[in-house]
């Protein structure tokens, strides 16, 4: 299907030029620049070539591995909880519920907040001595101070980000459920399959591609989370909530340590690019590109 008769060959390229130019300047070029930057080190105002030294230092740095471990712990809880809540809600909304539009809208409101606003709110609810949830749950757990303990602080961040993230997985999964043909389920129920069997034998396998895509998106969110960690704990108490993405942000912004931060960002780039490939393969399988 060539375009209309008489259309200049250059017409499509004029159309895409502005978008591609901006994307090249702001996304592609800086990403390539970060590869170059990761091989250099800041000394005074100059960048000096140091080869792979930044990477060697990162891989030998216990803080980095600790941060990666915290990211993993956070990610498992975040992805697990958001998926479970998202899936249950998606099934409920898909089956149909009175006032479904109102409920869906309300579930979405937390996602419409800035991570910083959301973080300020969650920090306030768990603030030592003054926070309402701290005062409610703290005494029950033997005067536990949520933001004063590593596990407690991580729990608050997990709770806050899950609270904000449910809407995201819900909408992806809900849209995916719409592609599951309803008559399959009806046929199965005529054959005597109960609701539980219908879910595992029909809905779940057909939803697997959507589930994978959702998990890929959530993993990227978890690996790159910065905003709510900054606004709820700022990495504390001590370094107990200092995930890798927060380390990178702080190295660059507070310590001007660009070589180091870029090296971390290059490692993160490969992690994200790997995940992106999984996603793109899924989209290709669905023939979304034609």
């Amino acid at each position, binding site marked *: 299907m060539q375009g209309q008769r008489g259309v200049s060959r250059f017409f499509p*390229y004029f159309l895409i030029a502005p978008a591609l130019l901006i994307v090249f300047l702001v996304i592609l070029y800086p990403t390539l620049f970060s590869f170059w930057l990761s091989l250099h080190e800041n000394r005074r105002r100059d960048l000096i070539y140091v080869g792979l030294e930044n990477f060697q230092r990162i891989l030998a740095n216990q803080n980095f591995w600790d941060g990666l471990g915290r990211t993993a712990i956070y990610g498992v809880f975040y992805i697990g909880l958001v998926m479970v809540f998202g899936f249950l809600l998606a099934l409920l909304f898909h089956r149909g519920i009175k006032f479904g539009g109102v409920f869906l809208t309300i579930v979405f409101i937390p996602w419409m907040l800035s991570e910083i606003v959301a973080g300020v709110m969650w920090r306030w609810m768990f603030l030592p001595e003054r926070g309402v949830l701290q005062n409610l749950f703290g005494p029950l757990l033997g005067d536990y101070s949520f933001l004063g303990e590593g596990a407690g602080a991580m729990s608050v961040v997990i709770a806050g980000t899950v609270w904000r993230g449910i809407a995201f997985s819900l909408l992806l999964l809900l849209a995916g459920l719409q592609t599951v043909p309803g008559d399959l389920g009806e046929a199965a129920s005529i054959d005597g399959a109960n609701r539980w069997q219908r879910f595992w034998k029909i809905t779940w396998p057909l939803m697997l591609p959507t589930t994978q895509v959702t998990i890929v998106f959530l993993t990227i969110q978890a690996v790159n989370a910065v905003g709510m960690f900054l606004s709820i704990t700022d990495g504390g108490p001590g370094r107990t909530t200092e995930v890798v993405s927060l380390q990178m942000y702080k190295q660059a912004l507070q310590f001007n340590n660009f070589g180091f931060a870029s090296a971390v960002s290059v490692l993160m780039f490969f992690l994200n690019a790997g995940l992106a490939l999984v996603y793109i393969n899924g989209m290709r399988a669905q023939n979304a590109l034609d």
Partner: protein
Amino acid sequence: MATNVSQTESLVGHGVETTSRSRSWWSRNGAVVLMVGLCLVLLFPIFYTFITSLQPRGFGNSVQLFREGIYWGHYEQLLSTPRFMRNILNSGITSVGGALLTTVTCALAGYAFSRIKFGGRRGLLLLLLGMIMLPGIVNLIPLYRLSSDLLGSVPNGVTLFGDTSARQFVNYLLVIGVYGAFGIPFGVWVMKSFYDSIPRELEEAAAVDGATPWIALLTVIIPISLPGLVAVFLTNFVFNWNDFLTASMLIRSDELKTATVALLDFQNQLTGNNSELLNAASILIMIPGIVIFLLARNAFFRGFVEGAVKG
């Protein structure tokens, strides 16, 4: 707003009414009760923040709420603080600018990707798809460094208009450009799938009438694509309004700080028991995003579903 209703209706199934007569009240309404409970839990943080913001300084404690009645002083104080209003204005300028840039560029590029088979089309689409997955933090580190060089090259002390210096003006443009760019990979996909749903006969009719492709696009296609364009603009506006990372890394002048950056600064510098004022600021900052979402929620659902799922 007939189209608005249909989008949510199409996402949410209709209540199961067929066999409800014979079942107990709980099995008919249990899900609704559960959802009401869940919604109350989900709204609680916002509700509590609002309650807190209506207490005088030091009284936003769970045991002494409303001892002094409703106190609007924090809002009065914030709305009459020039620095806070400037932060809000900065958020507005950069969010609108970025969303406009995204919308205009995606309106053009999405059309090419939807209608015309050109060399490199598939590869470029894949590239954009990959970029959806590249989060801001990874290219903000190099952007931070590059922007230092860019801003450093603008002579300091040159005033352009009002009290805005040339360097601040470039800083605004920089943030707008980055916001605009971050919205493009997803926006192109949304617009492509929107154009895919418009029948080709429209352009063909215009071509028969002698319209050039540019004229047909601008006078026939763009006007009926308004819902798609509005969806792209509004989702990007809210996304930019809520952004913290980009603004915190790329804005170098205190006067240009956006509301979210200022809010975190405020929390970090908080002295004494002044959480009530902080909570009032949170409420004011969240209002635009929530209001736009509530008014145009179907634009959000539509853009999101079309871009991310249907491709």
